[in-house]
């Protein structure tokens, strides 16, 4: 057994060292994820705000495009809930002329931070509780969902959702 005491001590030291290494690697990995997440989330917010700002600059509804007089019936005169989305001939973002044209719109945007997938949902909401409804109202809500393949929770991509509620009378 002469000399084995030192070997056993060294083996113990190696086990402790391995544990330190594992913890250190975890910390470095976490730091790197924090850096990347922060930078990409900044881009996610910008892209979401970009779509919302753009949609806000359009008319509230197809029936209010280029008109000075309000529709005869409010809100019954607005586009039915089942027909929200791009109108005939509106194939790109350039063609959209009202707020709900963005409903169902999907795009993959390439930026300095990689590719981001954007999905938009527009629907009518209740005037009291702002919940989704299937009839016309003077409130429309836009939900912009942004996903990046580099922003993940476990194996699944993380979903970022930005929302905005627009009122016909507040335009």
């Amino acid at each position, binding site marked *: 057994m002469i000399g084995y005491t030192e070997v056993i001590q060294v083996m113990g030291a190696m086990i402790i060292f391995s544990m*330190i290494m594992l913890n*250190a690697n975890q910390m470095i990995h976490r730091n790197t994820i924090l850096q990347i997440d922060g930078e990409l989330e900044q881009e996610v917010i910008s892209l979401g705000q970009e779509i919302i*700002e753009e949609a806000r600059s359009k008319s509230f509804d197809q029936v209010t495009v280029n008109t000075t007089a309000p529709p005869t019936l409010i809100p019954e005169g607005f586009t039915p809930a089942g027909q929200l989305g791009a109108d005939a001939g509106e194939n790109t973002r350039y063609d959209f002329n009202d707020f709900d044209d963005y409903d169902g719109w999907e795009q993959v945007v390439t930026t300095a931070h990689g590719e981001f997938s954007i999905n938009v949902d527009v629907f009518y909401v209740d005037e009291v509780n702002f919940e989704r409804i299937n009839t016309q109202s003077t409130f429309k809500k836009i939900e912009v969902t942004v996903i990046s393949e580099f922003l993940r929770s476990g194996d699944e991509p993380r979903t970022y959702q930005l929302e905005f509620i627009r009122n016909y009378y507040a335009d």
Partner: protein
Amino acid sequence: MNLGLITSYIIAGFIFIGISMVNISLQSSSSELAITQITRSHVSNITEILNDDISNMGYDVDQTTMETKGVILDCKLPHRISFYSNIYGDPDSTARKIEWRFLKDEVLPDAKNEQHRALVRTVYDSDSGAVLDKTEIKVGITKFQIRYFDTVGKPVDESLPSGGGCSDITDVKQIHIELEVQSPEKVYNRAVGEGRYIRSVWDKRFTPINLNL
């Protein structure tokens, strides 16, 4: 001295070197994270003002009387933009002219990172042209690129040509701004090598409501 003891010393030496390397890596990683956070907070501070200024351009501007001064947008250049807006939201106050200018050709004499340039925000009296407020932002900005669009939603590479000077301001509907801030200090992998500056890039396409009425 027996073989076991010698082997132990050798292994202990490796472990000591390993611990030192891990320590250096941890230090590099932590300092990189700290510098990243500082850089990003600079970006956040600048974009907060930009978000307010650009989105609200044209607010409380009487476009009838301001027509001779270029209505809302006064100047569109790749590194300079100026516009009119009542930045105080005060009905007793009048619209001011706000200018953002990136001094891309002027090297900052005391900057540790030679790519750093100043971004200047100036508020002018719209009648007399007197400077009311001037803020020189010197927090490591290395890029401030402005693109202009005549149609909303166009791809970034289809922007309007913007080298025509301050008179050509028609048809601008969207403004895309790209900002890059770099750290003054370099970070090094394992404390050796060339090192690199930490970058934080922000870009956003603005659709000012008053340019789209």
